[in-house]
């Protein structure tokens, strides 16, 4: 079983509980213009060209040595990915961490993700998936069932803006989130704070109210805006509608925290 892997980040502290290894897969069914990993969106590997690294040697055909031209992903087997993952088992055990499969959208590769989950569990390693929950339930259910934790990056509560920004409707997503609560698997819902898009208190509040009714939600985690996709967008020759956007300040994050504080029964983290 193989998939195109854009990156394997070890010692990841932002992709779930504990110390984790995040495995990023190529391909996404959404097209969010703020995505900080835009190279993962196409379904097949693409080339990124970092002009400032180019030596102008004219030997591109021999393989770029400077890192100016890089492929977004390489095809890897489950065994190859596991070889990287198991190196940090000690740290997962010490911290309550594990592996997070992210993307792109992992549910585009359910077979690979399930095989990876089986391999992790065979070595007593916890595994989580970070998914947009947009794929049909019959596809994602078997995948989710193999997870120890589900992380869902639900972005917008309202349907029309959701479709406009991501390219997909969100009723399926809410439906799947609701159904997933019956699986008995812990879930973290993680909307990103995107300036002018998701950053209204109303949006965050409505999402929170919806998930507060579910009994498998362990945390509502509002993520600060990540501007680091800019260089990659340039390298991909894509426009960047968020070129001037900045992460929210600590004071602004505190305001969000205060605004969400009244949601009963929900552990909330902002920032």
């Amino acid at each position, binding site marked *: 079983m193989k998939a195109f892997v854009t*990156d394997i*980040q*070890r*010692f990841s*502290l932002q992709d779930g509980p*504990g*110390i984790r290894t995040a495995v990023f897969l190529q391909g996404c069914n959404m097209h969010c213009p703020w995505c900080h990993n835009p190279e993962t969106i196409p379904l097949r590997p693409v080339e990124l060209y970092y002009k400032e690294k180019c*030596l102008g*040697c004219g*030997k591109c055909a*021999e393989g770029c*040595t*400077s*890192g100016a031209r890089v492929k977004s992903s390489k095809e890897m087997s489950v065994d190859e990915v596991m*070889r*990287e993952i198991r*190196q*940090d088992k*000690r*740290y997962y055990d*010490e*911290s*309550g*961490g594990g592996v997070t499969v992210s993307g792109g959208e992992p549910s585009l590769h359910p077979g690979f993700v399930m095989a990876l989950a089986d391999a992790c569990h065979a070595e007593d390693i916890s595994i989580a998936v970070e998914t947009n929950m947009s794929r049909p339930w019959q596809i994602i259910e078997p995948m989710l069932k193999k997870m120890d934790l589900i992380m869902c990056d639900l972005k917008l509560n309202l349907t029309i803006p959701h479709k406009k920004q991501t390219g997909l409707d969100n009723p399926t997503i809410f439906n799947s989130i609701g159904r997933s609560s019956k699986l008995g698997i812990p879930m973290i819902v993680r909307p990103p704070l995107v300036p002018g898009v998701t950053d209204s208190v109303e949006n965050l509040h409505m999402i929170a109210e919806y998930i507060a009714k579910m009994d498998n939600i362990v945390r509502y985690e509002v993520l600060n805006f990540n501007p*680091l996709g800019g*260089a990659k967008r340039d390298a991909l020759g894509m426009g960047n509608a968020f070129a001037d956007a900045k992460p929210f300040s600590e004071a602004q994050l505190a305001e969000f925290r205060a605004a969400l504080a009244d949601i009963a029964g929900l552990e909330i983290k902002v920032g």
Partner: protein
Amino acid sequence: MSHTMSKIQFINEFPAERRFTYDERIALLRARKIAQTEEKARAGGADEDDYGLIVQDVFHYKLKPNHPNGSIYGYAAWCENYCAILQQHPIYVDALDAFAAKGFFFLERLRPSDKKWNPDYAYPDLQAIFDTYQIISGIDNCHHFTPDLQIGFDLGWGGILKKLRSERARHDATHHAFYDAEIAVVENIIAFIRRAGEEIGRLAKEEQNAQLAENLRMMSEIDMRICSEPPKTFREAVQWSCWFSMLSRTYNRGSAGGQLEDLFNPFYERDVQAGILTDDEAVFYLACMFLQDSRYWQLSGLDEHDEDRTCHLSYLALDAADKLNIATNLTIRMHDKIDPVFFRKSVECLFRNKQGWPRYSSDKALMEGFMRCGYPKEIARRRVAAGCHWMCIPGMEYTMNDTVKVNIAMVFQVAWREMMANAEKVPPSAEVLWKLYEKHLKIAVDATGRGIIHHLTYQTKSQPELILNLLQHGLIEKGVNITDGGANYYNICVDAAGLAVAADSFAAVEQRIDREHRLSYAALDAHMNADYRDEDGERVRQLMYHGPRYGGGETLGDAWAVRISKLWTSLVRDLVAQHKDNPKHVNFIPGFFSWSNTILLGSRLAATPNGRRAGEPINHGANPNDGFRADGAVTAMCNSIAAIQPGYGNTAPVQLEVDPQIANDSEGVDKMCAMIRGIINSGNTLLNINIIDAKKIMEADKNPLKYPDLVVRVTGFTAFFAMLSPKFRKLVVDRIRAVNCEAVAGM
């Protein structure tokens, strides 16, 4: 408060009626320290430990040489000059401080820097080999082992003097030069501390602030007593240790830390029980001690019954360092039974203060390693973190810790050049290169071993250890200098530097030439000879630079690093057999550490196959080269360093740079606790951590005096960033860039 470089006595600075809390006094003393640091930085700074030295222009000593070359050698000359310094040395006094004992300079550095070794005992044949492989031999280096303060606490200076006199009477004339020098030194120490007591007593009468006058009066009283008698109270014991530190530093920079709880807890408990000491006072005294000198203290660990040493005083030591919030060299000895609350508190301190303390050592790895040298558990357990990367049994060992370094990247260069010179006869390959590397590394290590024996044989003729000798178990009874058989054990630290450069170079040629056939050895050699600045040079440099690196995680570079480590370890351990007939029964312990020699050891090194250009620094200690992995994963790096540990009780430290933001909440602290446990439990020996705001340090690099209180752990030691030279600042900055790719992008 006023600060001038010439000022060394601070009285009558505050209104007579003002009262101070201990916290206020700590804050004021800290502010003075920062101001003095700024003065030191303006005076030129230094790429080393702070040592608590005071820069002043009140007292300068002119060396009285006993050799035509202008230097001093042997018992008499060192004794005479040291005693003369003590007779003239002004007394630094700060009425806010609990303790006197600030020093101004080291006698050993008053010698001409190129005349340290007695020329009657030259070693030209060895020197030729040292030059070839750029070996720092340790010959002529001093201290770098640890005295046992407990001896001083038990005997006091008067008791030490009495013992010296009585042992002199029992020994023949061949020992009299030793005893006469030591007796004169101790007599002068007693007189010096008594003079300090008298001077402080006089200043107490001048001080108009009643609270501070009373403090000075107590300081005076304590000095008048402990100039001869053993310390009886907690405050007296701490003052005794401060004096010893200053006296030892003034002689030859020797330090005097140890297991803090073992040394001070008996005094603490006794005083608390007697109702003469509160926790606030104890914290204040410990803070003043940390302020006085940056010497190394170990906290926690296991006791002789395998029980956790952590006690209430361990917490107070953290509190003291926390309140002081400057460079403090505290090492937490980690073990399975460590008090989790104490450990977590230490991690909170680390991230809150961002001053590079504490650091963490592994009881298990160090114990198991040292016991492989043949020592029983009870001896191994007494070995504590006592210096940059050192382990040492206080009062028992002569170690030459951190003074012996073989540049194994230079060994690689010698092997490479021989391979290319014979390329027509023997086609080059990574394996051919390895065979040559084995040959040259053995030549280098064997010469290093002979150099150590040469040092041990003749060091007394150059620089006897007149101060540290006094706190060694059984040495006064033997009547000889520590290098002449005065130590109980000779466990000599032999470190390799440049591991990552050598490993990455092997990996790069194997990958790019032997496996991928991307270029030939001759072509690479030509590019290296041109420092990769010739036609197509930069493309080839990038190709080699992006090879499979040490630190990447089970890469070819990691495999080469392990192979080199095994070779290094076996060659150093083989020295034990080579010198088994030496009457000192010298043990040689391998490690990996560069200290701050990364610039020096890179300066003579030509371009290397890993894409490093000529003259660039070698890697730091056992760390990988910068850019070892795209994600800079701490875990990958630490696994790689764990895999190359030689495993004989000395360290190959992990030097870690971490952004403070990752532990800015309780969950983050939990993750850092887990990270530290993971690093320590994976077989690593010592972990140094810098908590550095990447953006702040970039700004400080441009304008160091903008942040005069910014402290970084440079190698094993911490230093005020502003005190470092631009080259050393760059070293720290580059390491931080390597693991904070995102935070410093574009800076």
